[in-house]
């Protein structure tokens, strides 16, 4: 292993410190590589920056957000479900980070620039893929085949889950494999009832289970179990949920081989054409706006699907297939249903469980749906409304105050997350003129749902209502929400896909670019299809797998 020659040369450079950058930092440093992590945003100190325990009365707008500042500076970011008055500091400023879309095809590009990236504000739901997903493109003759199967990634799911800590219930479903779970979080009374009734009606075809979530329910690698305060997306001072700040970056730092440089915006890669190798990266200091280069033997792009594609496009590299920026995917949501339950009026929930229920995909698993291919899963939960439902209740005085303390009836909702097919025309390209605040060309994004996604969206509301009716709910209301805006689920992926053929894919089966052997892309860009599972677990497993492969190549002298 080479030693650091000076402050600008490293064994490895990792671009991005979020979900996958943190994993690359951990795996590469633990395997002996002096690793530089370049993060575009600010450093995060949990004791200073986490705000999950700050009560509403300490916020200027009591949680309603600074409407004027949001309209001026974060009109896109504010659409995220985890954006609020506390967490807005963990999202980018849209003025500094512009992009464009066709006027009639909006795309929500949610971005987080700080150490930890979006791993601080993620939803923490983690689900394995299976060969139902890895074989899907080949089976349906859609796009291209994945170069890997479940057996290739299963050990890496184990590896990642054992480190991050996942609480969940083993269900023995072949298409949603179990992992080494920590104890599951509890279903509440109504969720348990719905699970039992759905099982009685649908058997193992439709299963209501507790969400599999990267929140600890037992001490794990020196991190404390969850204390059920609720708003994980504002940080977690007890490190009870997985994020790179809470877990992978400290592990990397403990090796003594990590150099983390915040405020470092990578403009492009530096390429040695005769050797067909990248020699490093060209970056801009976000504060001084000065440019400098860092060199390394290997480079990992972990900047998020669209940012990594943007770096490749701005570098003019790894794109002999013409696939960089294409096949943008997200998960469609908006379909579902809610209903009310009589009974359990003497019962309530205590504490804020940062997790809900999950209904694994059941469409096109053992049978064939006539209206669409692939499928969707439900997330949701049951509860009793509190004072928020009485904000506009009639009456004043003591009677109104009494009304505010009353809990509403139990209700339960299911919301679908549907698979999106890869299509070349859903595409991010370099904008011909528009640049960001640092002068770096930004993206023009064209992405829209196809008929298959729209059929999935419609079916979600039908089957969610079936689940509620099977459970005896009354006043069942199918969702009236239309399809979500593409990008709105923040599961964007696919912009530098893996494949078996350099002519049709950007990456091989090890997340290594076909064109530049010492360049790896391991974030969501690598995805060849989207599944319907929340994708971060798969990104992390692919990253760890690629890191071990890269280190083996380095050791063999093959890079």
């Amino acid at each position, binding site marked *: 292993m080479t030693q650091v020659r000076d402050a600008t040369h490293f064994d490895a450079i990792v671009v991005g410190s979020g979900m996958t950058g943190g994993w690359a930092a951990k795996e590469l440093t633990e395997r002996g590589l002096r690793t530089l992590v370049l993060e575009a945003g600010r450093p995060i100190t949990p004791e200073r920056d986490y705000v999950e325990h700050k009560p509403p009365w300490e916020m200027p707008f009591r949680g309603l957000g*600074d409407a004027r500042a949001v309209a001026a500076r974060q009109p896109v970011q504010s659409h995220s479900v985890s954006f609020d008055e506390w967490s807005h500091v963990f999202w980018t400023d849209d003025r500094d980070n512009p992009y464009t879309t066709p006027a009639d095809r909006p795309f929500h590009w949610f971005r987080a620039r700080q150490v930890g990236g979006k791993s601080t504000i993620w939803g923490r739901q983690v689900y394995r893929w299976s060969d139902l997903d890895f074989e899907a493109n080949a089976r349906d003759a859609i796009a291209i085949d994945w170069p890997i199967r479940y057996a290739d990634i299963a050990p890496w799911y184990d590896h990642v889950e054992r480190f991050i800590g996942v609480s969940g219930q083993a269900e023995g479903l072949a298409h949603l494999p179990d992992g080494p779970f920590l104890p599951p979080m509890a279903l509440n009374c109504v969720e348990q009832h719905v699970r039992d009734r759905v099982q009685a009606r649908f058997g193992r075809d439709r299963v209501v289970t507790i969400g599999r979530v990267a929140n600890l329910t037992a001490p794990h690698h020196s991190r404390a179990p969850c204390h059920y305060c609720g708003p994980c997306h504002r940080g977690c001072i007890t490190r009870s949920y997985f994020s790179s700040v809470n877990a992978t970056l400290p592990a990397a730092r403990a090796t003594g081989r990590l150099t983390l440089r915040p405020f470092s915006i990578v403009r492009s890669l530096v390429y040695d054409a005769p050797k067909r190798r990248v020699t490093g990266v060209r970056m801009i200091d976000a504060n001084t706006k000065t440019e400098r280069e860092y060199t390394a033997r290997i480079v990992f792009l972990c900047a998020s699907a669209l940012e990594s594609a943007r770096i490749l496009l701005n570098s003019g590299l790894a794109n002999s297939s013409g696939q960089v920026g294409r096949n943008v995917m997200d998960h469609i949501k908006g379909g579902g249903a809610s209903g009310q339950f009589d009974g359990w009026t003497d019962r309530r929930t205590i504490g804020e469980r940062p997790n809900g229920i999950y209904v694994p995909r059941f469409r096109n698993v053992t049978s064939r749906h006539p209206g669409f291919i692939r499928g969707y899963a439900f997330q949701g939960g049951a509860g009793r409304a509190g004072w928020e439902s009485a904000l*506009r209740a009639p009456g004043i005085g003591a009677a*109104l105050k009494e009304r505010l303390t009353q809990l509403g009836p139990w209700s339960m909702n299911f919301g679908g997350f549907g698979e999106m097919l890869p299509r070349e025309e859903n595409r991010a390209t370099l904008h011909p003129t528009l640049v960001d605040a640092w002068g770096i060309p930004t993206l023009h994004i064209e992405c829209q749902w196809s008929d298959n996604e729209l059929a999935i969206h419609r079916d979600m509301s039908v089957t969610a209502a079936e689940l509620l009716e099977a459970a005896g709910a009354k006043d069942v209301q199918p969702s009236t929400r239309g399809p979500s805006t593409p990008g709105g689920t923040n599961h964007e992926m696919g912009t530098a896909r893996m494949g078996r053929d350099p002519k049709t894919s950007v990456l091989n089966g090890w997340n290594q670019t076909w064109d530049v052997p010492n360049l790896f892309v391991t974030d969501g860009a690598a995805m060849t299809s989207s599944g319907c599972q929340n994708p971060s677990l798969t990104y992390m497993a692919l990253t760890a797998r690629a890191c071990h492969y890269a280190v083996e190549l380095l050791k063999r002298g093959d890079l």
Partner: protein
Amino acid sequence: MERRELIQWLVATAGLPSLAFGRQVHRRPLRRSLSAHVERTLTVATERILPGAAEANVAAFIDKMLADWHTPEERARFLAGLPELDTRCHTRRAADFVACPEADQVAVLTALDDEVTALRAQRGGGTANQHWFAMLKYLTVYGWCTSEAGMRALGLYPMAGRYDGCAPV
């Protein structure tokens, strides 16, 4: 201090530059964006709408929202409507709202609440939320429920530190 005493004291000290009750009150004084009369009116009205609102200093929250959150149109609509409290009290007692007996204040507020409720029941009742009294009531309820006193009273603070999905009410 009993609520009745508090309100009397409120009215008596209405000319003082700063009103502060209890330890949960924001330490900064009320913003200067509203006249002293409006502040006084808001403080009494919020307390009548939701007992405890004065001690939780909900009027300061409303002031902040009017100054920095609502649109200029919303603020103007609210401030144009609020004097109606005085107008209605004058027809009953020949006195401003804050100087009226509690029973008259409650009667005036109840009548306004009934009017908003009737608007809500009409076809296209969505406009009810734009009524200045609906704004006042919403901000009062929201402000109290997100105050320390309100969250304690609602059992939402301090946090439980555990999860029980089927606890007795």
